[in-house]
């Protein structure tokens, strides 16, 4: 082992480490935390496509059958066109609702402690994880677009629309992964995070406009659906993904709700996050 002294004195912490711009610092730290996630993905990209089966099955089997049935009123839209944004939102939901498992895993290994003693705002670490989940979910976007194109769904290929879809996917992933992280902070174990994830994913999916319009639901379910963030994610996707925008709310409203809820959850999770290592 050869040793060379560091070039500078060790104690250079006293000068220049003051945080002068907290917002810039927050954004920078969040990007580093996101970079960590992306670098992990880069070493193991296969995991991205092991989750491809589910949206493919929903689109090819469920979608094809219900298109034949014509049982669901979707306005002028073919049922395939109607459900494709819903299935993309579904796969984002199913993928990110288990993000808490990753963080419990890191806690049990001890890796998380290292991040927790670094001088980074904890909510920036949460935002980094959320961005990481978003990047992971972009793989689902790719899969859904390929399958939907093959099935003849009227997708819009305008670059701006696709960029918008990617943004909504990232936002949805951030929202549901942060929700899962919050669960992890309370629950502390794999089993419970898994359990809560299982418990939440189907109700969130079915109590939304993902595969049928809200209008045909019983009254109480309509209320639940309108409180469900997944509804606004699906609606934003319907406005962006299809040649004929088919959302029921304005894109601005849906986006504002997704951004607002995500921001609240991230701030809240940042406060809970240190519990994970106690």
């Amino acid at each position, binding site marked *: 082992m*050869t040793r060379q002294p560091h070039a500078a004195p*060790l104690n250079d912490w006293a000068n220049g*480490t003051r945080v002068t711009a907290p917002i810039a610092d927050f954004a920078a730290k969040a990007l580093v*935390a996101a*970079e960590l996630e992306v670098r992990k993905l880069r070493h193991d990209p296969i995991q991205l496509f092991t989750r491809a089966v589910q949206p493919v099955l929903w689109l090819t089997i469920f979608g094809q059958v219900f298109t034949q049935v014509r049982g669901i009123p979707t306005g002028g839209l073919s049922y395939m066109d109607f459900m494709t944004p819903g299935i993309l939102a579904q796969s984002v939901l199913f993928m990110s609702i288990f993000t808490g498992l990753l963080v419990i895993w890191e806690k049990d*290994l001890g890796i998380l402690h290292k991040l927790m*003693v670094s*001088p980074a705002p904890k909510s920036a670490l949460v935002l980094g994880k959320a961005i990481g989940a978003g990047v992971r979910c972009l793989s689902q976007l790719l899969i859904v677009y390929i399958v939907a194109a093959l099935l003849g769904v009227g997708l819009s290929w305008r670059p701006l629309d696709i960029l918008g879809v990617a943004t909504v996917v990232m936002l949805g992933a951030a929202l549901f992964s942060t929700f899962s992280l919050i669960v992890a902070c309370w629950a502390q174990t794999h089993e419970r995070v898994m359990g809560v994830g299982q418990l939440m994913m189907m109700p969130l999916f079915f109590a939304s406009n993902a595969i049928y319009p809200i209008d045909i639901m019983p009254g109480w379910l309509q209320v639940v659906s309108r409180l469900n963030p997944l509804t606004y994610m699906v609606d934003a996707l319907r406005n962006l993904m299809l040649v004929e925008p088919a959302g029921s709310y304005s894109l601005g409203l849906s986006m504002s709700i997704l951004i607002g809820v995500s921001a609240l959850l991230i701030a809240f999770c940042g406060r809970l996050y240190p519990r994970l*290592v*106690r």
Partner: protein
Amino acid sequence: MAIIAIQDLTKRFGPKSASRPAVDGFSLTVEPGEIFGLLGPNGAGKSTLIKMLTTLLPATSGQATIAGCDIGRQPMGVQRRIGYVPQALSVDGTLTGYENLLILAKLYGVPRRQRLDRIGAVLQYVGLESVAHRLVNTYSGGMIRRLEMAQATLHRPPVLFLDEPTVGLDPVARKAMWDLILQLRHDYGTTVFLTTHFMEEADVLCDRIAMLYHGQQVAIGTPAALKATVPHPETTPGASPETTMDDVFIHYTRNALTTETEGGYRDTSTTRRTAKRLG
């Protein structure tokens, strides 16, 4: 001025009535450049104390300052001034050694221009340049420990907390770790606060030692002074005639086996996990 000043620090898990505190009214001052060792049986509260000092755990009562920053009121100040190598693993096996360092350098705000130089320098310092771009999964236990040391010193902290830095290492790797710790103190005047179960390590490495038992400090002093406080053991045939740190440890914690009551499973599971962490 003391670089670590701890006053009456107490940590209690759970309600006051239910349990005795894991750390019970601990006080201590450590001078800059000192290598300080904390000894004590499993479950004595060593890791709990270190977690409070590194801002991971909030103290139940009492206070402490590290390099002038209060652990409760200025956690970010403390975080910027300390390096910490936890008892459990702290590097990511799914990244390369270089990437582990790069992420930490960025999180600690090492200026962009210095980053690569700094990472190159620490890698060389711990002797890992040649494997920097291999996944950490493929490292040996000794290499992982050295990478963790590199990670903890990247931002050049004046105080280093090491929780059982040589657990699971073979004698050669352990000796290399001792050299590294002494070298850090020599080159940069780093203050080191470590815990260990190896009496020889405490003896060789530490300027002063404190014994922790059931969360309380039962003895403190230089290795030589501690040995002097212990009555000479009855000389069994073949045993060394001098008092060793083992004798000191046994003297101060000899009730451990008879009074061990709670926390057995938790302690054993974490100890075992630690022992195989590098496997």
